[in-house]
């Protein structure tokens, strides 16, 4: 495999390099972007501890702190899920999005001031020399205001705020050990956060823990003095995260769930594949055996005597294997097919015996039942069987399917009517609501062409049918059976708006022409489409006389190669004079015309 990749070397290919550069750039972009998407904490590790209320979700909590549910989950090293949050407490990161130094709030936003509260051991935040550090400001002497929490909801329960020392919070506090650094606060100062409603939380500014944190206890203004007590009561026994029960649906779990579904479907498909394959293989073997048995019986009986149906019936009944198969639906159908094939391939008296056999084995009942089936395939099969086995009494039922919505049933019914009633069956054309495909027309004409055409019905009405495909079919029928009495009606079709109808009318006129046909066609020539002009020229070659030589010579001079070659061919068919004129004309014009003449002369 690696050698394949090596085979693609584009050392100096600017496009390839550009493409790879683009890929790398996009990668980098995503990496940076992904990093930026994480909660942008100006105080890494600074956070609030939020008491989770009943029915609160990551999203609802996140929303109230200006963060997303996923960010909250991620910050707490939990997997994000949609349901109620299970842990009692959550750590809410303090970011630029949910806290600020200045008292600026947007609409629908509540500002919760953060105050230092005395009495908690920790670190001391020293002001910058200019004394203008907005992070820790003395408001009315004591306590100290450190900033504002922005929240959408006033009833968030916050236990404590943890702000590690030595962090560039709001760009004001410098790291410990440096100039204007944070030093230990002894004794610690606690700050109280006033929230508009009940005593929800406490904050402590301190720094005795491992991260040298400043803790802020948050209390209601009216109970600021009792904050320490409150803090003791509410101070987390730090966060106890219980194993979620039931297990929440995470992103990975959702994907894996889909994988499980897909694998289950795949397994199900595999079972069906092997089942169907085994069934089909078994069916093939069975059909081979059946075919051999039936053919053996058939050949014996058909060769022995002409009236073999009774013997054949007896043979089929005596063979255990065939008897068993006759009782089965599939086996019986296979035997029906074989009998029908026999009927189709053997004509005369022997063929009649297959009909007798078909009826004596009550297979006509099987075919009739299929007509009532809901499966179109069975209906088609039933019609086909009844028609081939000449079950004329079923014609009415078959006729009902002439305008079936299913085109295959419709087509088979049309064929069956023609097969059963010959030309008489064509009267379905009068009531047909659907167009007839070219394939269907071909099938019908092929069937009709084997019949004596003395009893062709009156086709006048069909030529004026609004069903254009019926008109085309009728024109083909008239041409095929040379119904010269229809000449006048066919001429009328030359005025039809449909180009294809006119085309077939021209072709039909070739077969049923009379002394007026050529003149009529010549009159039509000028106004006809290119395709029909070519057709007229070809017809001139077949039915024209020397009177049309000038016309064909005119056509030979037009600027259309197909028309030229058609005219040349037509001229060559109009006797010696036509050939002479063609040679003379082509010799005179030379060039392309010489090639045309040679082409005609070579008889290709």
């Amino acid at each position, binding site marked *: *495999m690696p050698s*394949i*990749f090596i085979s*693609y070397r584009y050392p100096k*290919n600017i*496009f*390839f390099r550009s*493409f790879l550069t*683009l*890929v790398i750039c996009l*990668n980098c*972009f*995503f*990496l*940076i*972007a*992904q*990093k*930026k*998407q994480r909660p942008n904490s100006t105080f890494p590790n600074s956070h609030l501890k939020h008491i989770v209320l009943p029915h609160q979700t990551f999203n609802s909590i996140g929303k109230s702190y200006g963060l997303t549910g996923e960010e909250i989950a991620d910050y707490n090293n939990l997997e994000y899920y949609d349901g109620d949050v299970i842990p009692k407490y959550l750590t809410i990161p303090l970011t630029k999005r949910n806290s600020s130094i200045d008292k600026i709030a947007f609409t629908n936003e509540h500002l919760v001031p953060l105050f230092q509260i005395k009495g908690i051991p920790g670190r001391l935040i020293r002001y910058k020399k200019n004394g203008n550090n907005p992070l820790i400001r003395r408001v009315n002497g004591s306590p100290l205001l450190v900033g504002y929490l922005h929240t959408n909801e006033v009833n968030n329960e916050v236990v404590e705020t943890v702000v590690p020392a030595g962090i560039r919070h709001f760009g004001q506090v410098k790291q410990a050990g440096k100039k204007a650094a944070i030093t230990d606060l002894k004794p610690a100062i606690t700050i109280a956060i006033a929230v508009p409603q009940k005593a929800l939380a406490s904050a402590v500014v301190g720094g005795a823990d491992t991260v040298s944190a400043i803790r802020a206890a948050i209390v209601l203004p009216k109970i600021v003095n009792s904050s320490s007590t409150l803090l003791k009561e509410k101070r987390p026994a730090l966060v106890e995260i219980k194993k979620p029960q039931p297990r929440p649906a995470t*992103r*990975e779990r959702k*994907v894996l769930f*889909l*994988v499980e579904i*897909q*694998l289950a479907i*795949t397994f199900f*498909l595999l079972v*069906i*594949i*092997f089942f*169907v*394959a*085994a069934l*089909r*293989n078994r069916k093939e073997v069975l059909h081979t055996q059946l075919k051999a048995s039936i053919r053996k019986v058939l050949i014996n009986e058909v060769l022995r005597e002409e009236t073999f149906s009774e013997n054949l019936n007896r043979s089929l009944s005596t063979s255990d294997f065939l008897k068993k198969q006759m009782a089965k639906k599939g086996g019986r159908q296979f035997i029906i097919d074989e009998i029908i094939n026999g009927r189709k391939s053997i004509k005369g008296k022997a063929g009649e015996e297959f009909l007798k056999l078909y009826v004596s084995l009550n297979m006509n009942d099987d075919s009739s039942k299929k007509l009532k089936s809901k499966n179109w*395939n069975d209906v*088609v099969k039933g019609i086909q069987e009844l028609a081939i086995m000449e079950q004329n009494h079923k014609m009415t039922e078959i006729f009902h399917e002439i305008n079936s919505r299913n085109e295959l049933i419709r087509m088979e019914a049309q064929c069956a009517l023609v097969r059963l009633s010959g030309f008489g069956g064509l009267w379905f054309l009068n009531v047909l609501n659907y*167009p*007839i*495909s*070219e*394939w*269907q027309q*071909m099938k019908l*004409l*092929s069937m009709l*062409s084997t019949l004596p055409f003395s009893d062709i019905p009156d086709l006048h009405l069909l030529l004026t049918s609004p069903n254009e495909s019926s008109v085309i079919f009728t024109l*083909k029928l008239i041409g*095929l059976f040379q119904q010269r009495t229809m000449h006048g009606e066919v001429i009328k079709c030359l005025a039809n708006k449909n180009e294809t109808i006119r085309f077939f009318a021209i072709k039909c006129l070739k077969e049923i022409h009379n002394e007026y046909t050529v003149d009529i066609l010549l009159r039509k020539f000028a106004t006809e489409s290119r*395709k029909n002009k070519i057709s007229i020229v070809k017809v001139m070659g077949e039915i024209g006389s020397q009177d049309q030589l000038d016309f064909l010579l005119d056509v030979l001079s037009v600027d259309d*190669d*197909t028309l030229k070659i058609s005219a040349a061919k037509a001229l060559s068919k109009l006797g010696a004079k036509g050939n002479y004129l063609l040679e003379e004309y082509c010799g005179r014009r030379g060039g*392309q015309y010489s*090639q*045309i003449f040679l*082409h005609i002369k*070579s008889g*290709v």
Partner: protein
Amino acid sequence: MIWFEILAGMLTDILYFYCACMLVFYVLFAIVSIGETLRNYKKNNSTDYSLLATSELGPSVSIIAPAFNEGVGIIDNVRSLLSMYYSNLEIIIVNDGSTDDSLQKLISAYELRKVDFFIEKQLPSKHVKGVYKSTNPVYKKLIIVDKVNGGKADALNAAINIASKDYIVAIDVDCILEQDALLKIIKTLIDYPKVRVIASGGVVRIANSCVVEDGKLVKVNLPKNYLARVQTLEYLRSFLLGRMAWTRLNGLLLISGAFGAFDREIVIKCGGYNTKTVGEDMELIVRMRRYMVETNEPHCVKYIPDPLCWTEAPSTYKVLGRQRNRWMRGTIETLLAHKIIFFNKRYGLMGYISYPYWFFFEMMGPAIEFVGFSIFLTATILGIIKWKFFFSMLLFMISFGCMYSSFAILMEVLSYHQYKRRSDILKLLLVAVTEPFLFHPFMVWSSIMGMVDYLRNKKSWGEMTRSGFSTKTLELKPGIVNGDYRKA
């Protein structure tokens, strides 16, 4: 840097949306194709195709086959074509400036003589040096055209100029056709009364490891070569699911270059094959469809699920890479040449669904997949995305692929059931599992190289070396062809 975050978020969402759309398309293909494939299969059971072969009333057909340096097998291939039973037929073989002895072999084998032939210049093509016909009436259907080399599209145009029948069937001369392939494909063209079928095609199958006797396929085997085997599965998916679904929706934009039938009148009216693209067969279908839409004629392009044509698939990474590279270039050239269709309401479904599908998923797909996967992998390595999530997503894609492939196999078993052995089905399923690791990355890479080559304005076809079929009566030696454009 809010814009940065928004942009990154948007790009991530677009990638997810893209994947979701692709999966939805595949699921739709599977659902839509079921009805169409099974309906065709049942329809076949009650159709007597022999009528078309014997009836003089059937449409007239010209088979056109370009050949370039096919000397090794050309005699047998032409014999195979001549053995096709169809009453109103002519077979035109175009010797497209072969440098081997193809023409001499044909002349002596089929008793050919040069004839004076006036060629109507309906379509542009390079100079025709001569037209040959047989003096033996047994081969009266055969016409051999000797012309200056101009590529496959040019050879096909020359053949269309010479063809005189209503329909043309373009085939690759090295393909093996089923006995009734011609009947089935022509019947499709005349089977729809309400719309004009301008082109039709059928399923192309992989013939590697199959047994060929006298130019006919006598035994179907699953390819022994891994690459050919994967392509077998790929072709099953492509033809039985994708193409059938597009047929149902009347949104098909491609008929395989290996075997396709076209309405000659429309082909000529819309200017024939484009000689300036390596994707000439797709380009022709798109142009024919455009022509029909612009002239307000109801039309459709049909595909049938019957296996009609067997071809030898590339069995080495090198040749396969060239083939996929060319397919990608062909796709880009065609789509860019017809960009007017893109979300143009005038073109209906073609403008709103087919073209955008080809643009976003067939053309852009490999590049987007490559970029997306590399970002995903990098982000995982750097810890931005959890490994658990990475593997679960990977597993999701692989299991989806397996499910889709299994469905294609099921459709095959339910309809034409060519691979009868249980071991063959198991091998195909194994291929479905390994494909994402051993085959798919290479396909993506080759397609990207195709994009790069398109930008470099590379126009060559690339050599296609074949190893020949397993035969009983004839030995096919490795040959070089310029055919086989987009069989899948």
